Structures are given as C-alpha cells and as structure tokens.
C-alpha cells in the first residue's frame, strides 16, 4: 500500500502585484485505493494544490512537505514525480505541435516504466482504452490536444491515466466543460482504472455533479487555502443543497 501525505503545506505564487499566498497550511493523507474529493469555491486553492503536487515551476512551496511513502516529493523534478507514480489530469491540457498521440503515449509509457512496452500488447491496450473512452481511432494520429474539443481533451487525459497506471491520480476539475454523456464516459474511465489497480484518487471539483459517478470515501472542503471541513460522502450531499456560502461567511 502507498501513502501520499501532505503536511502543513504553504504555497505562494509570484504575480504582477507581488507574492500572493495561496495555500495556508494544507494537511491531507491519501492511501492506495481511496478516493478523496476536494471541493471548494473558485480561488480557494484547489488547482494550486494539484499543480504543486505535480511540480509546476510557477508555484513556490514556502513550507510544509509532500511525501510519497515517506520519500520527499518536493525534491523531485516534474518527470521524476510522474515516474514515482503521481499523475495529474490537467484542467487545461496544452497542445503539443508535431507530436502525435501515438508517439506521445509510447514515449510516456517508456519513460514511466523505464523500458519500451512490448509492441503487440501495447497496441492492444491503447486500442482497448480508446474504445472504452469512445475515442475514434483517428485520434491516435492527431497531434496531442491540437484541435481537440474540450471533451476530447479530457478523454485523452483519462486515456493516459488508464495506460500509465499511476499510484495516485490527481484529477483537476476533469468534470468542467463536459456534457453529461462525456462526464459519464470519463467517470467510467476513472472507475475502470481504479478497479484494475490500487490507485488512489484526489478528485478536485467545484461541483458535486461528478460525485454521482465517482464515489469518494472522503470529502474535504477547501476554503481560503486550507481544509475548512472534512467528512464522508454526506458532506458532498450537504454542499449540493447548501453550496459554499456557509464557509465563505465564516472566512
């Protein structure tokens, strides 16, 4: 079993108006097989947490720690974190000109596993995962995210999740911009990946909608850069009916 542990994490970002503190002491512990939902209003720091775990250079960790099975994640480069088993499904996946999906997936798989996948199995796996996500086979020859619709980009993120088989997946507002059909397809993909492995999931979302399809055991409400309340799935139900106003008034 693996554990991703975040302890008293303080993170800031440089803006034109100077240094802005975003995370103000986040504590979180996720074990293999668990699904944690992080919910919160805009600007509460949810995405910052996601990017900090993945190692985006824009964010500065001022104090606190992130460890994976006791190993310091903050000391690792972005690619080392991915190799260690962390995966971030991005909210806004970028276009990579000149790199086809096929080439990209194979290169990523080779980098993560430290060796090239056996060709026959790999082609079969890719084909299967694409079919599961209702992605047309022509996708494979397109350049990464180039000209993809919002829904296609998210499916492509989940395709990577299924194929790269991380220990922990952080889903950064994967549900935003999806219609209900696409939301179901993407959610099924995440659930499939969980069934086939012992993956832990950190599901970051603004809305409760995706929680109808991906069931969290733990819900953390994020307000003003830290966890304001924690609970089980019932907390999500309460947010569904009441919204975030209660927390904002306190803050």
């Amino acid at each position, binding site marked *: 079993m693996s554990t991703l542990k975040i302890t008293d994490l303080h993170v800031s970002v440089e803006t034109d108006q100077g240094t802005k503190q975003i995370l103000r002491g986040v504590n979180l512990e996720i074990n293999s097989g668990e699904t944690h939902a992080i919910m919160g209003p805009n600007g509460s720091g949810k995405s910052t947490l996601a990017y900090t775990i*993945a*190692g*985006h*250079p824009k964010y500065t960790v001022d104090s606190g720690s992130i460890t994976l099975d006791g190993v310091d994640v903050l000391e690792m*480069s*972005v*690619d080392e*974190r*991915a*190799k260690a088993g962390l*995966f*971030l499904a*991005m909210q806004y*996946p*970028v*276009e*990579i*000109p*000149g*790199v*086809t999906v096929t*080439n*990209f997936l194979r*290169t*990523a798989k080779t*980098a*993560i596993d430290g060796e090239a996948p056996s060709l026959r199995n790999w082609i079969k796996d890719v084909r299967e995962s694409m079919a599961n996500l209702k992605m047309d086979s022509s996708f494979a020859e397109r*350049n990464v995210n180039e000209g993809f619709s919002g829904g296609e980009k998210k499916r492509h993120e989940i395709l*990577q999740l299924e194929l*790269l088989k991380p220990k922990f997946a952080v889903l950064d507002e994967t549900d935003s911009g999806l219609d209900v059909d696409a939301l179901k397809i993407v959610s099924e993909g995440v659930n499939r990946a969980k069934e086939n492995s012992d993956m832990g999931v950190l599901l970051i979302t603004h809305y409760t909608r995706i929680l109808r399809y991906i069931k969290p055991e733990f819900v953390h409400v994020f307000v003003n850069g830290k966890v304001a309340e924690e609970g089980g799935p019932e907390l999500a139900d309460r947010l569904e009916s009441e919204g975030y106003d209660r927390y904002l008034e306190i803050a």
Partner: protein
Amino acid sequence: MTVPVQVRSARPKSTNPADFEAVTGRELDWKFTPVAKLQELIAGDLDGSRFDYTASETAGVSLSWIPVSDPRVGSAGLPEDKASANAWAAATEVLLVSVTSEDVSEITITRDALGTTHRAAHIVIEAAPFSKGTVVLQNNGDARLVENVEILVGAEAQLNVISVQEWNDDALHLASHFSRVGRNASLQHSVVSLTGEVIRVNPSTVLAEDGSSVNMLGVYFADAHQHIEQQVYVNHDAPQSKSRVTYKGALQGKGARTVWIGDVLIGNKATGTDSYEQNRNLMLTEGTRADSIPNLEIETGDIAGAGHASATGRFDDEQLFYLQARGISEEEARRLVVRGFLNEVVQQLGVPALAERIEASLNAELEAGVK
C-alpha cells in the same frame, strides 16, 4: 529615385555584378540578411577556380569541368542579386553533373575542404530526358562561399537534388539555385541547413513546359547566433504545372534567426496549375526570431488550386510541463517535439541513409543547445 519592382518576374537579372548597386541591407531581398558580415562575399574578390570535392563513382552520373562559355551555363536562370552575379563573374569553370541513367542513380558530392578563402562556385546539374537520379550536395568544413547552382531537368526526367549544409560554425554560405523543369518532368529540390554562421540558399524554379512539377522542401535548425535564410521562388510558366513548397524550421537559443520568403507566380500562360506553399517554424526557446513571408501572384483566372500557409509556433514551458508530468525528461521532450515537427519533411527527402543521419545531427544540436 527608382520605382521598386512589384512583380517577381520583373526583377532585373544580370551576370555582371556592376549592374547591381552596392548592397546596403535596405533592399527588399537583403533586408533580413546580416549584410555587414557578407560584404566581401557580395562585392569582394572571389577565388573562382576549380574547388575540391569528393564523389563516389556512380553508373549513370558523370562529373566534368566545363567552360563558362558552355551554352548550358545560364540556361536555367540568371543572377537576380549582386552576390550571385559576383560569383557568376568570378567562376572560371563550371562543374557539370550529368545524370543520364534511366535506372535510378544516386550520387553524393561532398565538399569538405573549401577552406576559408572567399570563393565562388558554379555547378550545373543536368538530367537528360527520361533520366532518373538523385544528386546530394553534402557541405562540410569551412566555407566563405558564394555559388550558383543550375538545375536542368529534361523532358519526362525525374530528378531529386538535395543540398545539405553542415558547415563549421563560422561558415558563410550564399547560394542561388536556378531550376528549369521541362515537359512532364518532375524535380524534387531540398535544402537542409543545420550548421554554419550565415546560410542563405535561395532556390528558384521555373516550371517551363506543360505538365512540369516541382516539390520544394526545406528543413532547418538554427541555434544561438545562427542566421538561416531561404528565399524560395516558383514561377509557373506553363499549363498544367504543379508545385508544392514545404519548409519547416526549428530555432533554439539566443539570437537564432531564420528567414523564409516564398514567392509563387502563376503566369498568364499557366492555366490549370496547382500550387501550394507553406512554411512552419517552431521556436524552442526565448530570444529567437523567425520571419515568414509568403507571396502569391496570379495572372490567370484558370487555376486548379493555389494556396499558402505560414505559421510560427512556440514550444513553451507549459508544453514542457505537460510532457514532463508524463514522465518524459526535458531533453527527451524537446527531441520528441522537434523530431515530430521536422519529420514531415525529413521523411520526404528520398534518401533513407541521409534522413537517418540528419535526424542524428538534429538530436546532437538539441542536446548541445540544452546544455
């Protein structure tokens, strides 16, 4: 005051350098070029004697030196700028590459001992009617070279010409290529520019007879303080002629500079023609500059197709983050992006061994640039 020439085909031509005014860098065709570094080549004395080269014995291809008075010299085109005229006037003999075989033949002519003398060269590549062949001009070592390369493609012939610039880092190279493509003949012309301080290769092609076609390709990689330029010109002068122009380049490092100007002229005789030109640039780092200027002039109402495209994209930190977040190292990420981007052209060169070597050179450049 002189009125600037508007139509591409109306530019003055002459083999006499005195017919061109001194180059200041303000001229339309020099304004992107670092002319201060090149004045001695543009207007100075050049050694126009025979140059050293090595070439493999190839059946169906012969090499010989011919006098400048040979009627073939000047039959593909004439200089349109002072540097080209300077080389024309200075060359005392012309290297003739004669492709006669109707079976596919392939020859590589390597120049790696030109030295640092300011030098003029003149080459005529002639493909006989119905012949098929590939001629690679492989350029290495030092160079302070201005040259004219004429390419004559006879009726029904299929010729593939590739000029590869892998000079030493301080090399200066100005080249004008003039191609004339005959009836139902096809030319593939490629310019691969990797190393050298200033490389300016200006290829022009006249589709002179019915059914002639040309595929003009370019691949370039400019690193810090390197200038790579190409002014490409296709003149559709006959009915049913077809042209494709695809130039792709990557830039990496402070001061890396590339220029692509693509002129396509579809003359009033050239009915039913089909043309498309495109240039794409990929900027791998900050501090690079790519100029890309397509021009299309059409003098007939009857064309099958004509189009152009130009795009310059950036490989930025967000793309790097995305790839690294999937376990791919920074070095590998750049390689992946550049290889993917340039492959479209490299794969078309038609000489697999050369394509492989170019990929290796590109990888070496990428690695050198990242450090």
